[in-house]
């Protein structure tokens, strides 16, 4: 709001420009909200009038009722909490571990060349294929789901960060070496700060990966969580429950992505030239 005081001194043309910008933003937002309301309204209407069978497609009002029901019997936050914990912990572990391993691979070219084919194969492998193995090794509790979440995100984190570390500006490396910098100094003064933008984009990708991992894990083995509600809802044909869990999932996935975007605004200020 700092510039508002000076608005008087702007030219006519600039004021028109500002007005047009505001109008544009307004139109975009009203269309966004409008589409959502329209979809919900059409959904509700079509089940109320009987164009679609509410037993098969559920409806917004039934979803709200289901969520309220879950809240009343006290299981709503239990399921949300279970999935959130698995997702957040898996996310944190895969990011930290992935960053560390990428640093290690950056440090030694030999280790990097030796391990490259392993990483490529692990990246290509669909992690869900490990499902039965994970159940046998880790049982049917949260540990198995956490493990699934970690392996889904880990390889992506490693590859993403390694690419960023390896593509550090050659001239800046030369400059630091001409100053007599050792490898630790090159790492801390150049490689880590210059890869900050990549780190943030890795976080964004890994938020999605963590949700895939935790929900996939809950599909395979679980007694609680949003993924469990979805699978259970599908098995007993309670479409209301399935849809309610999916809506809640949408909300939290968006929230987590939003938090990372906030972090980006906080951290990335002066990375581009």
């Amino acid at each position, binding site marked *: 709001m700092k510039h508002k005081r000076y608005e008087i001194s702007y030219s006519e043309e600039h004021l028109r420009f500002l007005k047009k910008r505001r109008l544009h933003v307004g139109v975009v937002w009203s269309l966004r909200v409008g589409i959502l309301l329209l979809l919900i309204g059409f959904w509700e209407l079509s089940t109320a009038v009987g164009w679609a069978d509410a037993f098969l497609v559920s409806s917004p009002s039934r979803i709200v009722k289901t969520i309220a029901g879950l809240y009343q019997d006290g299981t709503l936050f239990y399921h949300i909490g279970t999935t959130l914990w698995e997702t957040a912990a898996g996310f944190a572990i895969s990011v930290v571990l992935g960053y560390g391993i990428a640093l290690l691979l950056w440090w030694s070219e030999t280790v990097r060349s030796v391990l490259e084919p392993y990483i490529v194969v692990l990246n290509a492998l669909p992690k869900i294929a490990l499902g039965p193995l994970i159940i046998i090794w880790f049982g049917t509790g949260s540990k198995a789901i956490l493990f699934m979440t970690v392996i889904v995100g880990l390889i992506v984190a490693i590859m993403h960060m390694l690419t960023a570390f390896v593509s550090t500006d050659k*001239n800046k490396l030369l400059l630091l070496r*001409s*100053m007599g*910098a050792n490898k630790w100094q090159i790492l801390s*003064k150049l490689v880590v*700060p210059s890869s900050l933008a990549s780190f943030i984009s890795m976080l964004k990708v890994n938020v999605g990966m963590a949700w895939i991992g935790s929900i996939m894990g809950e599909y395979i083995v679980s007694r609680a969580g949003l993924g469990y509600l979805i699978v259970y809802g599908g098995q007993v044909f309670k479409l209301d429950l399935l849809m309610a869990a999916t809506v809640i999932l949408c909300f939290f996935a968006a929230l987590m992505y939003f938090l990372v975007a906030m972090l980006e605004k906080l951290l990335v*200020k*002066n990375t*581009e030239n």
Partner: protein
Amino acid sequence: MEEILRFTDVGYIYHTKRGETVAIKGLSFSVEKGEFVAIIGPSGCGKTTLLSLAAGLLAPSEGEVTRSGRCGYMLQKDELFPWRTIEKNILLPLEIKGKLQQEQKEHACSLAEKYGLSDYLQSYPSELSGGMRQRAALIRTLAADPDVLLLDEPFSALDYQTRLNVTKDVAHIIRSEQKTALLITHDISEAISLADRVLVLSSRPARVTHAHSLQFEEPDPLKRREKGEFSEWFELLWRELNG
């Protein structure tokens, strides 16, 4: 005169999977304290290799490079770290050497002040013009108090107008700090306008084919360009470079 840098019969071979390339062979020259030496050569003649050898970043395949004192490197682009303020950028070489003492820090800051950067110390590089950034890069190089400055086409990334101004700027700073400098460039007029001595390199493998002492009274690169000798030198060096 005290010799700061000497190349004695230096050769350098690049090794790649596909084979080896002789980049430099039988290269000899020396740089004395306080001198401004320019080396010109056709493009791809191993100029950057030569500077890396001078800085000790590469070891010669044959011959010997002797150096008394420290080198400071200045590259084509300013290579300021965009996440650091100008002050932090300037103090970087001291940080690397691990001797960020008050005295050294004050020396660096006084250089910044002397050459018109004091208002920008807390700014980020993206807030500065190309010319100011290159000046900051020079102050960063000088902050570590090097005995010889190695300049790798430090003006070639700038537009012509800025380039003339920055060249003048850098020449002024280097001469008033009484620094020794070795400039590598493919720009003949830049070499003539800046240097006390010009060495001409052959194409690969690089060696010195001609050496000239330029007897300009005038240290200002812009004024040098107006002198009659300037075009004579230009023609001579142009012929030697292409000959």
